[in-house]
């Protein structure tokens, strides 16, 4: 993940086009948020309302950054489509989708703060908030995953196509993992959750590596500057 962040930042530095530069930066931001989320599991937060909400904040950050990044990626894919076609109505649903995701995240943060897990009985509103989260967020991210896969099919750029496809698959796995949060915990669901999490991270790394064509500098090829005298006429 650290290597992925480093590579994304370097690519951002190399791109000239602002859209691609921003895309590489978003990729670095997304992976950084995942890294923060993973590292935060080692931190012991105090069992207060604020402490409990801090537990869920890294995941909320990952979801928000994922959504924003997917939005940027679909816009890039639409731009690279010669006919600049809208992808499954994305231009109409992107803002309502963001509002839904942000709303669901507010609910789950409130749920986590005021009805932390481990309490004997969760209030009704907390159960509803949790149910809304595990339905709305996977649905919106699932739709975004469909949009991104469709946009991958439409772009003529084979490098971008591969990059977007990996990103779409990674997002789809992530959406299923979020949906599994709402299911009763069994050995099978735990195994599926872990497997899909690993698959999601692996495909995200592959997406970084396929962001652009990378050449390899051949050794022993020092740059030479032909003088004007060398010009053949």
């Amino acid at each position: 993940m650290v290597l992925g962040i480093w590579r994304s930042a370097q690519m951002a530095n190399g791109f000239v086009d602002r859209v691609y530069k921003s895309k590489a930066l978003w990729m670095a931001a997304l992976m950084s948020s995942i890294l923060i989320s993973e590292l935060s599991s080692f931190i012991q937060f105090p069992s207060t309302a604020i402490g409990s909400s801090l537990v869920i904040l890294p995941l909320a950050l990952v979801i928000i950054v994922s959504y924003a990044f997917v939005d940027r990626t679909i816009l890039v894919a639409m731009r690279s489509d010669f006919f600049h076609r809208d992808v499954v109505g994305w231009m109409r649903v992107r803002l309502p989708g963001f509002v839904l995701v942000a709303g669901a995240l507010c609910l789950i943060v409130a749920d986590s703060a005021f009805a932390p897990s481990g309490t004997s009985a969760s209030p009704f509103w907390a159960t509803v908030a949790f149910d809304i989260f595990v339905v709305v967020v996977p649905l919106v991210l699932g739709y975004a995953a469909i949009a991104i896969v469709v946009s991958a099919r439409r772009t003529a750029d084979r490098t971008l196509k591969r990059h977007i496809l990996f990103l779409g698959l990674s997002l789809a796995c992530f959406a299923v993992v979020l949906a599994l949060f709402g299911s009763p915990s069994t050995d099978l669901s735990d195994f599926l959750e872990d497997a899909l999490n690993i698959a999601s991270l692996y495909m995200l790394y592959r997406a970084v590596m396929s962001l652009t064509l990378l050449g390899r500098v051949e050794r022993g090829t020092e740059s030479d500057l032909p003088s004007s005298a060398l010009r053949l006429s």
Partner: protein
Amino acid sequence: MVSTGVPSLDHILGDDGYPDKSSVLVIGPPGIGKEVLGYWFIRSGLVQGDYCLYATHRPVSDVVRDMKGVGISSERVPEWISSSGSPVKCDLKDPTSISYNIKEAVHRNKDRRVRVATDVLSPLLVLNPLESMYSYWSQLLSDLKQQYSVVFALAEDGMHPPNTLTTMEQLFDGVIEMRLYEQGLAITPLFRVKKMLGLPPFHGYFRFTVSNTAMEVVPHVV
């Protein structure tokens, strides 16, 4: 000779820039900055009073915004053939009309030096068979060379099968490749001059930087 609009690149090309009556192909992945070379080429032409034509599959407003983003804003503007925002439309489904409009515009200005920049090569290659596009570009470049013109075309790397761009490279007098290269953990934007009419073969790579005021090209030490 025709200045590239980037003094350090002119120096690399023997202090002169692109050869007269030539065609130059710039290949690179999306986002790397191929268009910027085209923008400086056109801007240089406008400053020198050349007739400049920009044929693009994008709207004029997008191109103008990009030009301003790299520090090019001029009261003088090129003539446009574009998908929208210009009197003459660029219809990718009708390559013949694109070719006709370019030749017609160049012919109208046959008494002046002409610069043509275009990004329609890749879309046309995607939408049409390679054989027909080879003939199409061969004919178009040959016709434009009859005039006092320099053609600057962009091609998207990674968008075509490997043999497609190799085939198209044969038609152009100069080929420049721009790409991100990896050296260990570092990733650097570099370009190579694969060939240029009237110059001996180049070796090595050149590092380029694009700011919001200028473009710089310097030799890259491996």
